[in-house]
């Protein structure tokens, strides 16, 4: 229950409600144990965007700077949406993969722990 106390009615819209993105939705992407990138990155994409675009374009553009990117065994990668494991289908859209507004996709590459195994 809210602890907010005010002198007058207090009702303001969320700054990042999905309506504010004109047909797009926010998606955050993090590569686990590769903290060189400091924090996840955020994208605004239509829900029809194929998941393949996330990997082939956005993740590749950002993460390929890391020497581990070339070492990834794609048959072993695992994914989380927030804290829930999920198996995205490359050819399906974000919506069809169950990815909603402001979801955080966490990309796990077993055996790869960053520069000198430091998590970076």
């Amino acid at each position, binding site marked *: 229950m*809210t602890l907010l106390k005010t002198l007058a009615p207090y009702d303001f819209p969320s700054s990042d409600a999905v309506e504010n993105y004109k047909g797009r939705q926010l998606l955050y992407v993090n590569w686990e144990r590769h903290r060189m990138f400091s924090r996840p990155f955020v994208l605004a994409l239509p829900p029809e965007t194929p998941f393949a675009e996330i990997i082939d374009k956005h993740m590749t553009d950002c993460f390929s700077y890391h020497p581990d990117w070339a070492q990834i065994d794609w048959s072993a990668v695992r994914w989380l949406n927030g804290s829930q494991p999920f198996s995205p289908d490359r050819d399906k859209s974000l919506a069809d993969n169950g990815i909603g507004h402001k979801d955080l996709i966490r990309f796990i590459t077993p055996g790869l722990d960053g*520069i000198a195994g430091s998590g970076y």
Partner: protein
Amino acid sequence: MDMKVSKKLGLKERYTMMTRDLAWDTTFQPMDKVFPQVGYEGIKIHDWDQWEDPFRLTMDAYWKYQAEKERKLYAILDAFNQNNGHLSVTDARYMNVLKLFLGSTPPLELMAARGFSMVARQMVGAGPRVACMMQSVDEYRHFQTQIHSISNYNRFYNGMDEFAHQQSRMWYLSDGKSFFDDAITAGPFEFMVAIGFAFEYVLTNILFVPFISGAAYNGDMAAMTVGFSAQSDEARHMTLGLECIKFMLEQDPDNLPIVQRWIDKWTWRGTRKLASVGMMMDYMLPKRIMSFKEAWEIYFEQNGSALFNDLARYGVKVPKCFAQTIEEKEHITHQSWIGFYMKPDACPFHTWIPAPDELDWLSEKYPNTFDKYYRPVLEHFDRQEKAGNRFNNKTQPMNCQVCVSTIKFNEPGDPMEMCFRETVYKGEKFHFCSDHCKEIFEDEPEKYVQTFISSHAALQGKCEPEGTDINAHDYRPGARMHAYWRMDKRATGDFNGSEDQKNFAEWRHQATKN
């Protein structure tokens, strides 16, 4: 006709006549209508006369002291500037400390001035009202003197001229802005706990040590003198914050849980705000004073423990985040520097990889963490830069909904994992950097759903420079952030190869060689 000359008033009498005796209770309107804000937060005050004035300063004495300090300060600033003082600093990298400081601190001093003048208006008692009014004027003075002391550097070095424009727009300045927006939109008592107590009392030394001692250690007499000029003000601010806490706790036992929640909240928010200050100590000052970890141990763990022991008689406990900050002191400065290093295009100051002897210093100061987690990646970045492949992460960040830091801190207990927390409110997901920020959100979600997150605003098309045609065929929201931020290209990028580096070397050469 004989005049009877009365003897001069004593300090105490004089103070009473110039403050409390000038106050009165309103009669045309009830007091609670004139002072509506002192009641709604739930703090119960039964007798404002019980307020103990922590310092007895009247306005005339205040002007006199402050004027004297100003004269000294500006005499030293003039001498320093006329003597090309900027060339006497340790190293041109030092200028970047000033740039980060200029963007992050004076605008917050201005917010503090506004906040204290609002609180002064709302306080029923004359004692706290006068003290808050003086603090407001102090904060205004700090805001102006900080800018003045740095303005001379602006003639020589890049990236200082648009700090006021950038303050409410730049990604990395949003954390400090949100800190004060949160405080100033709270009620007067929460503001006092937030700024007067948690920030000015519990955490202020962590801010003072890097800037003021850092300036002194690095030959910046201008910033050092500003600090000394502010120091006696800060001492007053600390006693005011502490007195306010004691006053609330002595007035009614029901105030304790409210005050405790605010102490927990604001100590944590202040700690998050200080991550970039710590980074300045460990990475940006060419001549270091002490490590952030050592400063945290002295000023927070030891002094903070003593303070909370003192407050235990009121039932106050150490802030909930205490243990987490102790774990994080080994990590956050390294995590912050990596976060800035990887955005060379998106900061109006330079970043760099520390020299080998500086990396050794970090290894020595952080024996438990630096070599294991941070040194390998910094050395990797260094090799990449030397090979012409300097790191430049062009993506937009994910930020915490409460503290607005980028989400870059580790899971407690596991430095290799990122810490994520989330909650759903009215069908929308919100993300946090920590349990503490999540709890702050859940206590007052109506407030934090409005947080300004620069990357999100950009993706909504709200961060466009003037003249952008949002109906153009190739319009992409957020594609022109540099123009929106008014970034001077010369101020961005790695320190190595920068114009600042080149000019400083050349001017120093002219000053010391024939």
